[in-house]
């Protein structure tokens, strides 16, 4: 296996970090919806924290993207 092929495989493997981000986002939005359906009056107040949690969960996946880009282009 030449180095270029190994690079591409490594970049693809780096993107597996997105598994965690996807699972995290699913848990986040699922639990938010559950809570919002049980208590719709309180849902609007927690939407800011929903987006904050989304941002933080997403960041972890994006670190994987950065690793992939670093492997490909450096």
């Amino acid at each position, binding site marked *: 296996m030449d180095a270029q092929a190994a690079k591409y495989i490594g970049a693809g493997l780096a993107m597996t970090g997105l598994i965690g981000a996807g699972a995290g986002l699913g848990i986040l939005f699922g639990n938010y919806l559950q809570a919002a359906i049980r208590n719709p009056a309180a849902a609007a107040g927690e*939407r*800011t924290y929903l*987006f*904050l949690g*989304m*941002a933080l969960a*997403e*960041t972890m996946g*994006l*670190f994987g*993207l*950065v690793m992939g880009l670093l492997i490909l282009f450096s």
Partner: protein
Amino acid sequence: MAAIEPMEQFLVHKVVPIEFPVPGLGMVDVSITNSVIFMMIAASLICLFFFTAAKRALVPGRGQALAEMMYGMVDGVLTGGIIGDRGRPFLPFVFTLFLMIATLNLIGLAPGGFTVTSQLAVTGTLAVMTFLTVLVVGFARNGLGFFKLFWPSGMHPAMSAFLLPIELISFLIRPFTLALRLFGNMLGGHVVVYIFASFVIGLGVWGLHGVGLNNLGLLGSGLAFLMVVALTALDFVIAVIQAFVWAALTCVYLNEVVNLDHGH
């Protein structure tokens, strides 16, 4: 068939080259690039909108209602909701960040548009600006008491050897995560749309020129086109949400230093 280059849309090229020597620095490059042009377009759009919308009518028209709605959202949910009454002085900063990022993201989605926020240099600069604002406000409001930020309340002193480095790192990593989040979202969104758009043409050509089962390529082409439409719609949502997230995180970071002694 043209080569598929998903990254080509992010290339910065000079439109008006401006270079001149500065003593002590060497050649300074302040060329007007496509990135600069789209930033100027965004800034003029925002200014134009607010100059036409802010008529101070008692019964607001459409533009004024939209402007008041956005202002009220940032004031009520972000600076008011997260920081509280002490957040009022930061409203212009947060509102400007929100509007600028949202506009840059949205005009990047226009056909032929250049996404300025897909440049790590741009998001990095914005992140460093936000981070420095938090630092300056923190030291100005609390003096050396700013370092209490790294001392969780109720922590046993024996734990400090473990927790202080973690708190410090999680504080210092903030500009990187801010910059990477916006950059990654914009880059990822545009690359995915580009790749599905290339499927539309690639599979369509394959389906038109093939025989027998190859005609199924036309079906794949149609599905890829539907995917492009759906992803573009998703990108519009993400463009606004990412601007909101940036503004909200700025408020959270400011809240920690502004209400350090209150625990709001």
